[in-house]
């Protein structure tokens, strides 16, 4: 019988750190990553010497970028592994750092995501299988097609779907680590550059650069290092999966529904227990699909409840309080780890102007091209 992460040694997040997400700059990835790691070590109040293993997530930097960055913390000879899983690279690195600690192999592990946009497009090796119009359907057009389908099926005006961007830009405006820190009116969102279908530029994630890091520790590690258990946040569950064979136009949602159910069930919670959710809102329509996939509202009800304020900070459940991928940004490798950082901040009660009152349970969700999916639930 396969075991769940909750069957093993309990794992806690004790440190979080960021390099703010930003538009592409001349700053090296080494500087981005080191800032996030040093902030996470300081937040955890541990020294680099205590970290027994490092998981380095990136999708765009190329081969073996970990040690040229980590050596500047002191090259002590501990294991380094690189994880590439498209948009879910950071989530995958976090899961495997947790698994290492949960297994008892290490007491302290680092998961760090760092990325910079490539200068000349993203390379994906050809499969040898052609397609009819793949070169005409970028991700934003895939999601424009799904926006058209959803809005007609559920009779939700596309202009109302854009309200997701208004909410997430408002949250990002309160987040010093966000790439977009400006409140936007619905008129500004709708009046911006038209991209595809009903999607405008402010409804699409800006892929930039940045870094995020978390330190995960076992209970034994917390005791041995003398850490404050009051600031430790439990990793209650971890679930992952990949797309099944089907002729499905929305494979990310089918996969998300299944993975969400496993993660929420493993955490022994119901969807109504979630106080904070960070999800893969690269495009506004995605927040509808993936939030509904948790079961917090019936299909087609997300937008009416959004208009009532249910998903605002202070509402029934704060969704994308960091600003999400739309406002905080999506530098790829860091994104999934940054979500964990936001949820830890929220569950500690340290989120300041973005604080969801009395947050006790949070969920982080990412999908990656492929498709792959990761869901983690954290609890206080």
């Amino acid at each position: 019988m396969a075991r769940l992460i909750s069957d093993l040694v309990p794992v806690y997040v004790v440190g979080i750190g960021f390099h703010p997400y930003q538009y592409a700059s001349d700053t090296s990835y080494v500087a981005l990553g080191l800032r996030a790691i040093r902030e996470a070590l300081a937040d955890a109040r541990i020294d680099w010497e205590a970290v027994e293993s490092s998981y380095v997530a990136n999708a765009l930097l190329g081969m073996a970028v970990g040690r040229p960055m980590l050596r500047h913390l002191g090259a002590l000879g501990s294991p380094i592994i690189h994880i590439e899983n498209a948009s879910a690279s950071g989530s995958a690195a976090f899961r495997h750092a947790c698994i290492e600690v949960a297994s008892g192999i290490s007491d302290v592990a680092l998961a760090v995501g760092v990325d910079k946009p490539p200068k000349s497009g993203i390379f994906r090796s050809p499969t040898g299988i052609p397609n009819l119009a793949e070169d005409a359907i970028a991700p934003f057009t895939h999601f424009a097609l799904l926006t058209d389908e959803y809005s007609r099926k559920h009779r939700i005006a596309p202009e109302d779907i854009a309200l997701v961007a208004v909410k997430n830009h408002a949250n990002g405006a309160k987040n010093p680590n966000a790439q977009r820190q400006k409140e936007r009116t619905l008129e500004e969102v709708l009046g911006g550059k038209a991209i595809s279908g009903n999607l405008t530029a402010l409804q699409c994630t800006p892929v930039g650069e940045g870094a995020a890091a978390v330190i995960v520790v076992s209970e034994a590690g917390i005791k041995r290092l003398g850490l404050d258990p009051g600031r430790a946040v439990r990793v209650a569950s971890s679930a992952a999966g990949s797309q099944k064979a089907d002729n499905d136009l929305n494979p990310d949602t089918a996969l998300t529904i299944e993975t969400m159910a496993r993660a929420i069930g493993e955490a022994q919670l119901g969807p109504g227990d979630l106080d904070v959710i960070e999800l893969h809102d690269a495009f506004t329509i995605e927040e509808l699909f993936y939030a509904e996939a948790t079961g917090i509202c019936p299909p087609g009800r997300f937008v009416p409840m959004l208009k009532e304020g249910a998903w605002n900070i202070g509402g029934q459940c704060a969704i994308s309080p960091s600003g999400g991928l739309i406002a905080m940004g999506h530098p790829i490798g860091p994104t999934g780890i940054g979500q964990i950082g936001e949820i830890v901040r929220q569950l500690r009660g340290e989120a300041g102007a973005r604080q969801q009152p009395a947050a006790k349970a949070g969920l982080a969700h990412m999908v990656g091209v492929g498709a792959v999916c990761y869901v983690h639930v954290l609890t206080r």
Partner: protein
Amino acid sequence: MDDQAAALFAAQGTGALPDHPALNGGRCKACGYIFFPMQHYGCERCGSEELEPWLIGGRGRLVASAEVHVSMNPRRPAPYVVGSIATDDGAVVRSILEVPADADLAPGTVMTSRLVEETRPDKGPFDLRFAPETGRP
């Protein structure tokens, strides 16, 4: 000429739908899974390597459409309209649509395939696209 792209569709239709170019799909002999385009690597559903070519008729119903305003590919200059089509034979394909840019296409609209002049340099003389089937409800 890119042989792979040319292999995506046949100039002629299927027996049931002779007037519209067919898509060169595949079928798994082991589990019956229908897929597009044809490939020989293995069945996505069951892993069998017993795959056979299977013509998919160029007719279906529109699932969704979108006018693309920004092109990421100089070979596909915007604006253009794309659509998702559930074919009568059970495959789901996405194609550029031959419609006016501002066409309001309702889901369920019957769509059929046709060949148009290919504008990309190395893809042969024709490209396959879908358009609303005229003269039908």
